[in-house]
């Protein structure tokens, strides 16, 4: 029953086949010989796919966060600072950074989850800003506005090992997130998102569930941030600004917040739009805004919901599909 939702509408095997095909293609790209530039772009896409998906993970429990980049920042700087100042290898500092970010997310979640709905969103927004403010405050360690350089690398100069590393990381993270969402853990979170009073009445400690959900989302973000630090080798606060958090939210909404593949599709499409429109330089934001408006007005379920939407359009012969309420915020 729960597994039926794995690949809705298309049949279990078609969906799995498509995913397998895409993954194989991605593995084959470097040997085929795409340029360093595109490898770099794809690595960026992988990183932000994990970030957006982890944002969506948190939203499964009904909590929409606008400060998610703060966890990426925490993970990145923690790992970078420890590696640079204490000489530990990135292989050690990356999991360490992820773990410390998890603990941070957990501690922060305890007071934050007392809030619900837009209140929670607002406090998450200011949490993201707080992370940046603290980062700048300790600029002796972190470099503040000028950023941090000289971070030890994970693999050296060539981008190809990084490509496979991030591809593998993305696949593993997505697999775990998928597992979480479609197991009873995810069911419990979705129950909490729909009605915390009913959830409590059936014995779910809804506060604790929301804390765990938030902390896990933070874990993935911290892990990604830490890995990011040892690839880019240079860190600056602007990478983790409020705008980044908002963009993660946008990628999730455009992709479709009700679908597991939403964040993947949304991130990939919007990032690639920004990349390939580069020739238009100052006009890129217009293109981006156009895509946003297109999806907002015409695709209530986001890009990932497009196949289903088209199908029901054909079936209903032109009656507009219902808009589903997102976020199930109580």
């Amino acid at each position: 029953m729960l597994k039926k939702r794995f690949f809705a509408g298309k049949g279990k095997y078609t969906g799995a086949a498509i995913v397998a095909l895409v993954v194989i293609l991605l593995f084959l790209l470097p040997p085929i010989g795409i340029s360093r530039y595109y490898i770099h772009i794809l690595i960026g896409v992988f990183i932000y796919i994990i970030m957006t998906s982890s944002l969506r993970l948190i939203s499964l429990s009904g909590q929409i966060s606008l400060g998610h980049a703060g966890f990426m920042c925490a993970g990145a700087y923690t790992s970078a600072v420890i590696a640079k100042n204490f000489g530990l290898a990135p292989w050690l500092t990356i999991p360490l950074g992820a773990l410390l970010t998890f603990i941070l997310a957990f501690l922060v979640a305890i007071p934050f989850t007392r809030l619900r709905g837009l209140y929670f969103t607002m406090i998450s927004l200011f949490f993201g800003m707080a992370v940046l403010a603290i980062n700048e405050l300790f600029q002796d360690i972190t470099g503040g506005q000028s950023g941090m350089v000289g971070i030890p690398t994970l693999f050296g100069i060539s981008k190809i090992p990084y490509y496979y590393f991030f591809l593998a990381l993305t696949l593993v993270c997505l697999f775990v997130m998928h597992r979480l969402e479609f197991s009873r853990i995810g069911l419990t979170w979705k129950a909490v998102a729909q009605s915390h009073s009913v959830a409590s009445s059936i014995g779910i400690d809804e506060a604790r569930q929301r804390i765990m959900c938030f902390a896990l989302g933070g874990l993935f973000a911290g892990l990604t941030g830490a890995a990011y630090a040892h690839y880019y080798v240079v860190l600056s606060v602007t990478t983790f600004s409020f705008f980044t958090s908002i963009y993660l939210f946008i990628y999730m909404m455009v992709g479709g917040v009700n679908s597991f593949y939403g964040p993947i599709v949304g991130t990939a499409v919007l990032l690639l739009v920004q990349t390939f429109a580069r020739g238009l330089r100052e006009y890129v934001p217009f293109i981006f805004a156009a895509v946003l408006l297109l999806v907002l007005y015409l695709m209530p379920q986001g890009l990932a919901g497009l196949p289903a939407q088209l199908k029901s359009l054909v079936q209903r012969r032109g009656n507009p599909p219902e808009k589903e309420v997102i976020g199930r915020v109580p």
Partner: protein
Amino acid sequence: MEIALVSSVNGIVLSAIYIMVALGLALLLSIMGIFNFAHGAIYMVGAFLTYGLAMQAGINQWAALVISMIIMGALGIFLERFCFRPFGGKAFEVIVMSVALILILETAVVVTVGGSNRALPAFIPGNIKIGVVSVSIDRILTLGIGIALLILLTLLVQKTRIGQQMLAVSQDREGAALQGININRTAAIATVIACILATLSGTLMSSLYFLGPFMGDNMLMKAIEVVILSGIGSFGGILVGGLIIGFMDAVLPVVMNPLAAQAITIGIIILILLIRPRGLFGYELF
């Protein structure tokens, strides 16, 4: 001593601007239940419109201000009808919409007039001496306008039918609708007022300090801070909240590390959300 006075004057003036912008944001929040993240961009565009009319079309600066307030007010009607109403108060969709708006507005400005900062000349040039401190008349003007606006808005809400309708909608949408109040019209009026307030404060800010295509981003944050601190439901609350944030922004960076000041302000907002989410003076915020 002089620093204290100068800072205080700056504080009050900054507060006046913050209050004007926050009022617009609070109006939209209380009447439509949405967070218009594009409010900062509107503030910025209003300022640029005045600048363009005054500096490039050569119109008298005061007239330019009035004209741009009218134009932006009209934009408000468009926004309410086509950008906010279709999403029926779903705050998260509106956030996506706001981002699209911000991108369009900011890029439009950058593309047409370039990305550098510039300034508007003073509305009334010259300084006045208050005690030992010399204050620009524009600052006094801003203060005066701020106070006048607050009085005007309070009168609007208390004395006019439209104001009472807005009050009713903000307290109970369904109840107001059942009483025959036209919610859409009320929302449109609120948006128009918000846009006018934003334009006015943006223009004043450009003559006091400067204007640039990205000045809205920071002002948006400040407006959100004021709204969270005060809560919605009373103009007086916004007044006090605006004064607190304005003073903190003007005075703290002078007496301590500006980065620490920033962190403290954010910390206070987080605390307010944790301890008293509806703000110091407000009813339910969301």
